[in-house]
């Protein structure tokens, strides 16, 4: 699927990864433009429901990134987020949602290069996987005329 341009949504924390992404820009490092960044005060505020909404509205891949453990501006936001991601990710895997399409990472405000690598790597792997048709089919499934089991 070489010519497929995946749509990636990135949920990032404002203090570290967003600042890191800024640094990527100011240091003129090129990275794939498929990613749409959504800024959050903290990874602790990234709700699992938003990830599902992203897939439902047509995202092919998701990046969730925030401060390294012990770096959190609010001291424990990323710890809570980590525990939440561990449980949410295993539920998604159990239900058959393709967890290869959700990349979790810690990117600090100084790691501009790492942010570019993560985005490029994610875009490449999602391009390999192709569009997330399974989820799109369920999300866009026209309300079945007669909805029997």
């Amino acid at each position: 699927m070489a010519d497929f341009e995946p749509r990636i949504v990135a949920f990032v924390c404002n203090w570290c990864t967003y600042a890191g992404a800024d640094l990527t820009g100011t240091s003129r490092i090129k990275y794939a433009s498929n990613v749409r960044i959504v800024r959050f005060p903290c990874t602790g505020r990234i709700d699992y429901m938003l990830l599902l909404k992203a897939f439902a509205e047509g995202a092919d891949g998701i990046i969730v990134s925030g401060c390294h453990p012990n770096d959190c501006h609010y001291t424990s936001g990323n710890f809570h987020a980590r525990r939440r991601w561990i449980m949410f990710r295993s539920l998604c895997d159990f239900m058959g949602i393709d967890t290869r399409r959700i990349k979790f990472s810690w990117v600090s405000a100084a790691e501009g290069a790492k942010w570019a690598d993560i985005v490029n790597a994610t875009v490449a792997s999602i391009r390999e996987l192709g569009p997330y048709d399974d989820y799109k089919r369920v999300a866009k499934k026209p309300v079945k005329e007669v909805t029997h089991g």
Partner: protein
Amino acid sequence: MDDLRKRARELLETSEVKVVIGYEQGTAGKTRALFVEKPEDTDKLIFDSRCVQNLAVYITKREVKDKGKMAIAATLPVMRSIIQLASEFQVNDNNLLVLGITPESKLVEFNSLTEVETFVHQYQIEIDARNKEMLDKLEKMTPSERWKFWTDELAPCFKCYACRAACPMCYCSRCTVDFNQPQWIPVPSHELGNLEWHIMRAIHLTGRCVDCDACYNACPLGIPLNLLTKKMVEEARANFGGYQPAIKGEHLMSTYKPDDKENFIQ
């Protein structure tokens, strides 16, 4: 269960409690919840292996709570639910008296919820064999097979919310599903709406579910939605050493350990 009836009669006669919640004969051989307020009605109380409905769902219900102090005939799952509700400040020693029924069907009366807690902690939350086997079967499938399994199982769901209504832990006066600003979960029961609802239910019960199967028994369509909450019990054990309802205990999903282990964050 004569000693249960005798004890219930005494409690009501001395008006130490205003209502005794237990089981009575239902329709077509089923059993159902019974709310006894008058001493002479206590002889309708029964207990046998058919009594599996989780009665703890009624101790947070306005119409029952307002009657005054409640006594409840509680099997092990019901006791676990009571302790989890106590840890979430929904019940306390002033408004609840627990008439415990041990797995050997013996009546044990507890004077306080902490006594119930020590009794509950003698037993681990164990997934029964049949469901364990189903979880392993699903584990061996590929993700797309699991996706097909779950989208097929959840497709007939018509969102009657019996799974939510029957669960003692679903006592919120206004559930996330009932909010429309923002409309987190779509109201219609199309495939996306069903998927998002059942994921939300499993997440909101993570670390709180006591694996009592009330949701599965309540589903009119027999959807195996208790597998989702059972999986979260398993994952909690695998990742964080499991949990036990504890009145003063830490809640799994609202606490953390700095050294929580994971292998997927780069």
